[in-house]
């Protein structure tokens, strides 16, 4: 009887759900949360999306905005399509979660009950991790790692800089949002300097020695930006140990690097609500069951996107969208009391190293030993020796991917 009743819940339309139906609350309206809310709604479930901002500003392609190659307006998305689909969108912050009583408290004081909760809170920047780099410092040395005002600040600083100035970037150790993102940013800032301020230099300080698509990036840098872009890995003293805001400098064990423009990408952790829910572990990120994306720490709470510890799967918008769909399917299955089948997930991440020059990394993942693992023999990067037509095709696919993924998430 119980199972049969649950089976019905997944099939009811919204008006029929008014009483006694499963309530799903999704916290976070980015690529993961918006995609998941829509996928859950397609299953006929009653879905409430909690997102404080009325407009979402997308990170993918924001490096092109910083380099003056793209207007900021193209990064902005609203939630009208979600509402039209029957999703209740609440523009408040979630301030508390009672995981025993299964209730979410909102900043306005109201309370939402849930049968299943999906957390897709993205990242929080750790302003306690790099001495000197706090929120006030970010207004002088922008991170631009959450798109919006910070993206525009870094853009305007580059525009205001005189030709001949030095731009300094500091890149953190793993894990962080968008593994190839800093190197795409370095590439596109170098492109901006080369074409607009050719006497300038870009110094890239990295807290690690290896990074995503490294050989492709380094080959492109050698070909396109020789003498302009200098990359300093961990082993050559690239790790930032702090910042000096007054001097606009990044501090390393080997000296201070002053810049006319300084972009500091600080260490990160899961968005704050993950800690509040008790879904984050001591690493600051959220361990999950790789089959259902249910938290390993809190029952009936699922975590997707950048906040999750997803093993080999990177913290990318593509991954968040793919996880959102798998998580929504898993919740639909769980609500009718069935066992969740083992999923497969994909990721494809494009980076631009210059306009019309795209490179990619892809992966196929399956659950293994409690994490998501690469399926051997699949995935990998674009070939090193590809012709310009191949790079141009990937740059075009990157744009097309952005249009599709944003249409899926935001309508």
């Amino acid at each position, binding site marked *: *009887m119980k199972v*049969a009743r649950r*089976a*019905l819940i*997944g*099939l*009811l*339309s919204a008006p*029929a759900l008014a009483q006694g139906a499963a309530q799903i609350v999704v916290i976070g309206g980015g690529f993961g949360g918006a995609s998941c809310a829509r*996928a859950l709604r*397609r*299953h*006929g479930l009653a879905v409430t999306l909690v997102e404080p901002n009325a407009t979402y500003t997308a990170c993918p392609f924001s490096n092109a905005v910083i380099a003056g190659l793209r207007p900021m307006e193209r990064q902005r998305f609203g939630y009208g399509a979600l509402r039209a689909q029957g999703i209740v969108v609440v523009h408040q912050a979630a301030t508390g979660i009672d995981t025993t009583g299964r209730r979410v408290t909102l900043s306005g004081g109201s309370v939402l009950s849930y049968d299943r909760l999906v957390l897709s809170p993205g990242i929080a920047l750790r302003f306690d991790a790099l001495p000197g780099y706090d929120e006030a410092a970010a207004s002088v040395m922008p991170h631009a790692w959450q798109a919006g005002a910070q993206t525009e600040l870094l853009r305007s600083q580059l525009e205001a800089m005189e030709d001949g100035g030095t731009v300094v970037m500091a890149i953190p150790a793993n894990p962080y949002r968008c593994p190839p993102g800093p190197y795409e940013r370095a590439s596109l800032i170098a492109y901006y300097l080369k074409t607009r301020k050719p006497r300038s230099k870009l110094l890239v300080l990295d807290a690690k020695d290896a990074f995503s698509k490294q050989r492709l990036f380094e080959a492109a840098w050698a070909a396109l930006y020789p003498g302009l872009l200098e990359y300093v890995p961990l082993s050559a003293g690239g790790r930032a140990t702090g910042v000096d805001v007054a001097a606009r400098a990044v501090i390393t064990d080997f000296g201070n690097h002053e810049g006319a423009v300084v972009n500091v990408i600080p260490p990160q952790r899961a968005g704050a609500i993950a800690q509040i829910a008790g879904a984050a572990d001591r690493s600051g990120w959220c361990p999950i069951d790789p089959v259902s994306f249910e938290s390993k720490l809190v029952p009936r709470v699922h975590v997707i996107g950048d906040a999750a510890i997803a093993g080999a799967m990177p913290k990318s918008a*593509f991954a968040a*969208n*793919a996880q959102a*769909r*798998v998580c929504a*399917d898993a919740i*639909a*299955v769980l609500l009718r009391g069935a066992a969740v*089948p*083992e*999923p*497969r*997930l*994909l*990721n*494809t991440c494009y980076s631009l190293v210059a306009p019309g020059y795209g490179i*990619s990394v*892809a*992966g*196929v993942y*399956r659950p293994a030993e409690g994490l998501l693992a690469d*399926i051997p*023999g*699949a*995935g*990998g990067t*674009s070939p090193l020796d590809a012709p310009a037509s*191949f790079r141009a*095709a*990937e740059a*075009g*696919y990157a*744009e*097309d*991917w952005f*249009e*599709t*993924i944003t*249409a*899926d998430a935001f309508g």
Partner: protein
Amino acid sequence: MAPVVALLLGAMPAVAEEAPPGASSCFGCHSPTREGATIPSLRGRDPAEVAAAMRAFRDGTRPATVMDRLARGFTEAESLAISAWVVR
């Protein structure tokens, strides 16, 4: 209970069905609805044609930028299940 369920089912709108393993990720690039996309929609295609493309990508006999890398993550049986689902 069973007749009641059948009655209710008949009156209800169709809802999404869970995807076979790997299939839902395809929509990250292949939009079923967006007009003017460069990356083609798979909706309405012959599933056998999609499965043949997956096979050719997997074997390396069809040129690709990224589909060769992705198709190698799936067996023939998995590709057939994906192909049947993504064309709907």
